[in-house]
């Protein structure tokens, strides 16, 4: 339960659900892999709801952007879950690893402050995909405009397919789409991802419910621990500098890339 509290904290700060951290730990502890994945999905929902309550209230997570992107990711998730039997997920592991690697294109910006996009495409403007929030760490109001709404939607559609096919939350993928395609500030990217990821995980949990893989004695401590961690993380994020959040994100992304490549290679 203590480890899950830490995972909930990390997940809420970085915008990743935390399933990719919990699952291998549970497997190491002797839990059957499918049960571990099913319980990790419940943990994602706890992380998402526990932290998003603070992020939405502080106006860091952008509800309008989230609703627009959810449209693509949920459609992707349902298609992904449907085509799992037709297409081998092996290619998806490699694609996932390659896409996560694009995060490193922005690594040189870690030391620089976020520069909002001046231009905004027609669709983003029409949907009013913009916002502002007060950053406590930098003690200033950050104003931003999302760009490339449809490309962002396409990215979220693929994230949804990956989530549906691989039974993951694909939080790292979502944060990468938010930052690299939509040009959202780091905190808006991770908090909006957190907001969305609970819904993607809910669709996945439904599958595990049907398969009878949800173990109450396993889910209870995991959900309780991640909920506590996420509530704490939700109150900490705005006081932490973007730079440290990005360093934390990159550390987890490196771990995820290695995991994805490993899974892809052993599945060949």
């Amino acid at each position, binding site marked *: 339960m203590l480890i899950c509290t830490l995972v909930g904290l990390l997940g809420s700060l970085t915008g990743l659900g935390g399933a990719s951290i919990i699952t291998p730990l549970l497997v190491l502890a002797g839990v059957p892999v499918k049960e571990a994945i099913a319980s990790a999905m419940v943990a994602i*929902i706890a992380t998402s709801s526990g932290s998003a309550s603070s992020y939405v209230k502080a106006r860091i997570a952008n*509800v309008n952007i989230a609703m627009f992107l959810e449209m693509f990711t949920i459609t992707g998730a349902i298609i992904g879950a449907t085509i799992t039997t037709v297409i081998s997920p092996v290619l998806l592991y490699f694609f996932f690893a390659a896409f996560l690697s694009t995060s490193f294109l922005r690594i040189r910006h870690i030391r620089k402050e976020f520069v909002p996009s001046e231009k905004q495409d027609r669709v983003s403007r029409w949907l009013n995909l913009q916002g502002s929030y*007060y950053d406590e760490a930098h003690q200033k109001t950050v104003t931003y405009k999302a760009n490339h709404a449809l490309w962002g939607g396409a990215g979220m559609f693929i994230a949804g397919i990956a989530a549906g096919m691989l039974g993951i939350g694909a939080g790292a993928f979502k944060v990468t789409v938010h930052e690299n395609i939509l040009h959202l500030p780091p905190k808006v990217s991770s908090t909006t991802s957190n907001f969305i990821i*609970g*819904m993607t995980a809910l669709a996945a*949990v439904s599958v595990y419910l*049907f398969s009878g893989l949800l173990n109450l004695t396993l889910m209870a401590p995991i959900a309780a621990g991640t909920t506590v961690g996420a509530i704490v993380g939700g109150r900490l994020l705005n006081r932490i500098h973007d730079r440290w959040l990005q360093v934390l994100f990159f550390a987890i992304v490196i771990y995820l890339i290695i995991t994805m490549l490993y899974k892809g290679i052993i599945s060949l």
Partner: protein
Amino acid sequence: MKPPQKPDGQSKMENAISYLLIGGVLLCLVLLVAGMVLFWHQQGGVSVSQDQSVFVRGHDFFSFIYDQVTGRGVQSLPLRLITLGVIVLLLTPYVRVILSAVFFTREKNFKYMMITIFVLIILTISLTLH
């Protein structure tokens, strides 16, 4: 310092979503902890069991909730409390989408009303299919 001001309707919706999410996770936490404490009291420990009675199963999301709420599901009190906690946790993001749809409709924000209703329909279909 206060966050920047937004149009009233949007702020109300964001506050309502925020309260819904925190209310959902706190209620879930109370039910889970109560269930775990009772489980510990009855069993003398809180270890992960592989007994079939601790696995929950449902034909689909909604029928699972219906069975549990009407008492046709898990029978022991500690496991029933844990199941209710998990149900509250699962329902929270779903109710969040319904709440957003209601607010966008009340605000006559038709673009986002359509987007949210689309999300709600797809989500409901995906939860009903499994």
